[in-house]
């Protein structure tokens, strides 16, 4: 949120309000916007792989369009989820259900997207439907699950961790129960077109832009940050905290469902295991991107950069022909390191305030 606000001390607008230097020593160490640190991290990691590439493989890592497009495609689907999770974390919550929701909504959406040429459709009388039907049903299910998450958290006051953990287990159950574990396949051509080619990347970027604007420039965004900063204060300021939380979790559910539509369309099939562990990857992208798990801080551009770091590391390891097992281990290390960095940032900030 405070993306470039901290460094822009415009003298005209604060004229007449300028600091009395004796009473309020101007603070020199104005912190860099968090996104800039993440960007520097991204560039540094990419350069490391570039150098390693020339040493180990004898070729460039970055200057390879095919590799770059695969890299960004890889993170686009989870990136869509991460945009939703970012908003949830900014309110001070967490959403563990997104991965399972991908599984459940992919199955449900796909079952309404099947072509009539396929003999074993889930609903034989409901084939060749217009593409809007499976999309609407899929997103609707995602929103519904998100509303349940949000309502549980806002009105029963159970911790978000528990509410969304319940939804995570429940939704995975739904995904398996829906067709008794059978995959759902053979969508119509129009449904298959959704996730074709570079479309997932475009959808990811569109989602990111829409929600960046929403978080940065709308009442919705101000209230989301306010709740994460000081829930009680937000309530006293007249914000309907409960309703707002339901809205935020509903958006997260909708984006998980959108990811499900994209991935099932791209794979031309939906399976109950879809989206396994996506929730953790999405949270990791957000945290790497500077979204604070204690709420109130972070931004969509940060999360997009976090997703790119994720992508660079994954394809970097593939490029260096490192074992897939190492990738997971490194992922774990990165997640912990990102959280440690966040805690360290908060501590040094608290010290700065104490010194006043």
């Amino acid at each position, binding site marked *: 949120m405070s993306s470039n606000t901290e460094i822009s001390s415009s003298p005209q607008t604060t004229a007449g309000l300028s600091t009395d230097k004796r009473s309020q020593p101007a603070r020199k160490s104005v912190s860099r916007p968090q996104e800039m640190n993440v960007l520097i991290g991204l560039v540094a990691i990419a350069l490391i792989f570039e150098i390693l590439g020339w040493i180990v493989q004898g070729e460039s890592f970055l200057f390879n369009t095919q590799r770059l497009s695969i890299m960004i495609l890889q993170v686009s689907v989870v990136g869509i989820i991460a945009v939703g999770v970012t908003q949830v974390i900014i309110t001070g919550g967490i959403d563990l259900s997104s991965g399972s929701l991908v599984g459940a909504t992919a199955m449900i959406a796909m079952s309404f997207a099947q072509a009539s040429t396929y003999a074993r459709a889930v609903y034989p009388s409901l084939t060749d439907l217009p593409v809007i039907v499976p999309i609407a049903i899929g997103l609707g299910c995602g929103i519904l699950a998100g509303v349940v998450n949000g309502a549980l958290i806002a009105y029963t006051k159970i911790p978000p961790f528990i509410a969304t953990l319940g939804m995570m287990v429940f939704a995975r159950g739904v995904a398996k129960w829906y067709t008794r574990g059978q995959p759902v396949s053979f969508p119509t051509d129009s449904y298959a077109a959704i996730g074709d080619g570079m479309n997932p990347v475009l959808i990811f970027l569109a989602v990111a832009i829409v929600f960046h604007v929403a978080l940065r*420039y709308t009442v919705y965004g101000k209230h989301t940050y306010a709740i994460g900063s000081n829930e009680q204060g937000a309530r006293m300021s007249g914000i309907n905290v409960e309703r707002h939380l339901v809205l935020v979790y509903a958006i997260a559910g909708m984006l998980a469902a959108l990811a499900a539509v994209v991935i099932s369309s791209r794979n031309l099939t939906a399976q109950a295991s879809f989206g396994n562990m996506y929730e953790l990857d999405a949270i990791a992208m957000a945290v790497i991107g500077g979204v604070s798990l204690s709420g109130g801080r972070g931004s969509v551009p940060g999360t997009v950069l976090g997703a790119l770091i994720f992508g660079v590391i994954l394809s970097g390891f593939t490029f260096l022909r490192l074992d897939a097992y190492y990738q997971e281990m490194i992922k774990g290390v990165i997640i912990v390191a990102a959280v440690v960095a966040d805690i360290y940032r908060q501590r040094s900030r608290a010290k700065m305030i104490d010194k006043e």
Partner: protein
Amino acid sequence: MQADIAKTNSPERPLNTGSGRVVLETRGLTKHYGGVRALSDANFVLHEGEHVAIVGDNGAGKSTFVRQITGVEVPTSGEILFDGKPVKFESPVDARQTGIEAVFQNLALADDLDVPSNIFLGREEKILPWLGPFAFVNEKKMRERSIAALETTGVKIPNLSSSLRHMSGGQRQCVAISRAASFASKLILMDEPTAALGVQETTQVENIIRRLKQKRIPLILVSHNLRQVFNLVDKIWVFRRGEIAGMLEADKTTGNEVVSMITGVADSGVHENASYI
């Protein structure tokens, strides 16, 4: 002395010490938390343009009283009359819509938002309001009005677009007070506004309060600092053990008398060494 107080505080006999119209009155205001009687039968009157203080020991019911008036809590029984009309506040929003603003001890600020966003939190200036929650915020207008609000209170904030997290306790307190002062049309309540502040910052807050007096906006100040109370207000309402022990006029009483009433030890002269007189 005690008998006098009982008389002045009786609801049947309206206070004749005040000047002008009654802005706020409570009749038999009572709040119980389970079996705990935090506030019983409080009869309180505030006149137009008047600045009053609420003093009392810890647990005397000061904050409870403030919470009932600002709609943070709903009283167990009793009446609140605002501008002569009975009001029932279900939430702080109701109180704010009536023109009552409050500065709470926990400030109710969002540390991660900038100054204009905080001043307008919950009542943002909107562009395209039909977009509902997704209506755009008119940052330019909010910024201009924030500058104006801060100027009228005389508060100096170097960089409005910096998030509050980067500001000192005094600056944050000033933002909270500016917010209340710029929206309050009828009444401001401040619950211990200088409790956590340094000397200079306290002076700044006291200056804001004096400016409000010039603008004739009524104020209720909850404070532990009797010197501050004597410096700033016209009347002192003393709370003791969940009841209003009495009301004293600042220019006709002494610190000793106030302390006697706070502690309930009527003997005058025994508090000469009390360090907070």
